[in-house]
Each structure stands twice: as structure tokens, then as C-alpha cells.
């Protein structure tokens, strides 16, 4: 992993001078600008070029965080896809593996690949390494009650999110059970590159005083309530089964049984 990072850094530096030349040309042409963005003004291109040069210098000094911020700023200004090549490298060197993968994917989708065969090849290799390095975590929630939800690093997850492994950056993470907007159970864990793990989190039992304790005054009312609830549960279960059958991918027997293609 360390060797790989050093090699990556070395390759990045080796390509930097070539890219500098390329970017000077690209920044002067609208063809180098992402089709999805507005064409930057001449001033923005000039400023982007200066910021990119500063980023390159920081990368040369292995100040990756500063380099990353400057490359991101340069891309915001000039919108030249080739900047993503260096931005992705800097993101990778600062542990932002998912963002690096996204930068590389955007690069491949927006750049004229025939003009940059060497960079494209290097990025494909880097992307495959990133896919192997990016940790994956599956959240297993136990004892969940109606209305409970799972929050992962501040983001609420859907039932679909819980079915498959999640790609996350290396580092510290936090998963919580949320009940009535309150995090009632929290697990913290740390992941390293290439980790594949399952985190179990168990929802706590609700306090006894939260349960209804009033006796139903009328047995007839109790009967009707029972019938109503029973009917609702039956209908709900039927709808849930139909929806799950229609909307859930098959779970195979190989590994996690499921995967996604971007």
C-alpha cells in the first residue's frame, strides 16, 4: 500500500510536467472544457492556470493536502478535465479514495482519450488499484423497530443501502440507530484500505414507560382495534412482500451475492 502510494506519487510527478504543457494548451481552448459546464472566461482560465501551477509545486513538495485544494480550485475556475488527473492523484494521496475514483471517472468521460493515451492508461491502472483499496462495509441492523432508521456518517440510509456493501474512505466512521430523531445507539469504527467488514448495530429496547399501559375500557373496542390492527398488518405485510419481491435484486451465492456496475 505504501509502496503503491509512493509509486503513484512518483508517476504523478513524472506526468506533471507533461500535463502542465497539455493544460496550457487546453486552457486556451474551449475544447478542453467540460461539456456540462459553462465556458470559463479568459480571466478564469488565466487564474486557473496560476492556481494549477501552485498546485503542481505543492505536489512536487509532497504537500498533498495543499495540492489537492489548489487543483480543486483550478478545476472550479478553468473546468479543464485534464486537471482532474492531478486532482484525483492528490485526493488519493490524502485518503479521499472515493473522491479520487470519481475524479478519474469524470476525467475518462470528459477528456478526449485519444489525445492523452498515457494518462488514460495510468488512470485505468489507478482506478483498478483504488477499487481494490477502497474499504467496503456492510451495516447489519438488529432488533430494529418500526420508525427506526440507520444513520451512517451523518447520512440517513435507506433499506436499499443496507442490502449491499458500502464503499467508504479509510478512517473513522460512525453508525447510529435513530429513533424519533434521536441517536439511541452508536457504533464507532476505523477502516483501513482494502478492509471488507460487517458492522453490527443493535437497536435498544424502548423503555417500559414508553409502552402504552392504559387498559382498554371496552372489550368490544378492544376487539375492533385488534381487528383493525390485524387487518392493517396483513395488508402492510402483503404490500411489503409484493414491493420487496418486485424491487429487490436477487441475492446470489457468490460472495455477497450482489454487485453494482457504474
Amino acid at each position, binding site marked *: 500500500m505504501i509502496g503503491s502510494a509512493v509509486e503513484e506519487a512518483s508517476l504523478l510527478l513524472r506526468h506533471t510536467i507533461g500535463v502542465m504543457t497539455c493544460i496550457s494548451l487546453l486552457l486556451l481552448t474551449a475544447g478542453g472544457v467540460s461539456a456540462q459546464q459553462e465556458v470559463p472566461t479568459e480571466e478564469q482560465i488565466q487564474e486557473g492556470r496560476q492556481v494549477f501551477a501552485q498546485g503542481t509545486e505543492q505536489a512536487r513538495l509532497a504537500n498533498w493536502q495543499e495540492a489537492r485544494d489548489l487543483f480543486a480550485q483550478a478545476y472550479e475556475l478553468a473546468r479543464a478535465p485534464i486537471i482532474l488527473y492531478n486532482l484525483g492523484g492528490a485526493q488519493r494521496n490524502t485518503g479521499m479514495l472515493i473522491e479520487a475514483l470519481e475524479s478519474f*471517472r469524470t476525467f*475518462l468521460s470528459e477528456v478526449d482519450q485519444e489525445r492523452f493515451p498515457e494518462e488514460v492508461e495510468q488512470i*485505468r491502472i489507478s*482506478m*483498478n488499484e483504488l*477499487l*481494490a483499496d477502497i474499504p467496503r462495509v456492510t451495516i447489519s441492523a438488529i432488533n430494529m423497530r418500526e420508525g427506526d432508521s440507520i444513520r451512517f456518517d451523518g447520512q440517513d440510509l435507506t433499506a436499499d443501502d443496507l442490502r449491499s456493501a458500502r464503499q467508504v474512505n479509510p478512517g473513522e466512521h460512525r453508525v447510529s440507530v435513530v429513533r424519533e430523531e434521536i441517536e439511541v445507539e452508536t457504533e464507532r469504527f476505523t477502516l483501513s484500505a482494502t478492509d471488507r467488514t460487517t458492522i453490527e448495530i443493535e437497536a435498544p429496547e424502548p423503555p417500559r414507560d414508553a409502552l402504552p399501559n392504559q387498559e382498554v375500557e371496552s372489550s368490544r373496542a378492544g376487539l375492533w382495534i385488534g381487528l383493525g390492527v390485524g387487518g392493517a398488518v396483513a395488508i402492510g405485510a402483503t404490500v411489503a412482500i409484493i414491493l420487496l419481491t*418486485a*424491487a*429487490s*435484486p*436477487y*441475492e*446470489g*451465492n*457468490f*460472495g455477497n*451475492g*450482489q*454487485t*453494482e*456496475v*457504474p
Partner: protein
Amino acid sequence: MNMLLRKLGMLSVLFAMSATSMGCGITEVVLVVAGDNTVQMTAQNLQIQVLDTNGVIAYDETLPVSEFAFPATLSITPSGSESAAFRVHVRATFPAMMMGGDELRSTRGTSFVEGESVRLDIPLFSRCRGVTCGIEQYCAANAQCESDAVDPSTLPSWTGSP
């Protein structure tokens, strides 16, 4: 009352028809990797790779055959375009000197079918041992190399079991 029930019934039928025509089912390709008896008896490991249109590996897992039962099944779903193309590489490895070669490979390239759950079969044939096919080709049942491109419209529906 009868009229009301009839109208409700018609509405239900219309709803069901529109839901079906909108293709609101899940988009997935269920990969089914089978092997002939020799492959099943002697393979040590099975590797499955799924590559996106850029040739980038989106999934790569190697498992000993003791961890699953043939046929191996894997659901592949799109995280982006529901008609995205992808390619699957499968490699079974064997003990050295067994079957005249250490591995068997096969590939297929196809696309998702929007709103449909379909099945992609990749059978492994022991008679393909030692056969090396070109890029984007695979060794078929007759031990001849064929194009690995699969027209997604020819993929059968996934019925829920291999």
C-alpha cells in the same frame, strides 16, 4: 354499489397495466456460472470480475469453490445508467497438472435491460482446457472460440432460481 365496485375493478386493472408497461421492475442481470462435472469436481477457486464500459474493474472476487455451490450466482445491478454495458470475466483455477492446465477462462459482454431482471449464463467446459481465445472471445461448448458479445434482448428472464 355494483357500479362502484366495477369502476374500482377497472381502475385496478388500468393501474396494473400501466405499472407493467412502465417497466417498474428492478434492472438486474443475474450471472449464473455453471461448470461441467469435471469442472465442479476439480476446480479449486472461482474468480468473477465485472468491468464497466471503460474496462475498469467494478467487482473482483475470488472464492474457493467450497464457499458456494455450483452454479455460482451473482446479481449485477446498475448504479448509473439502467442500460449500461459491462463485461464479465470468469476464471476457474485448478490444481497444477490437473485437467492439462491450471485455469479455465470465459467472458461475456452485454448490457442491462431497463426495468428487467434477466439471466446471463456462463458455463465452463473442461474440454476448453488449454484453449486460448482472443480478446472479447470465449471458448464455447465445442471448444471453438466465439465472440463474447451477448445481445441483451436475447437474455432470458430471471425466474428466481438457477
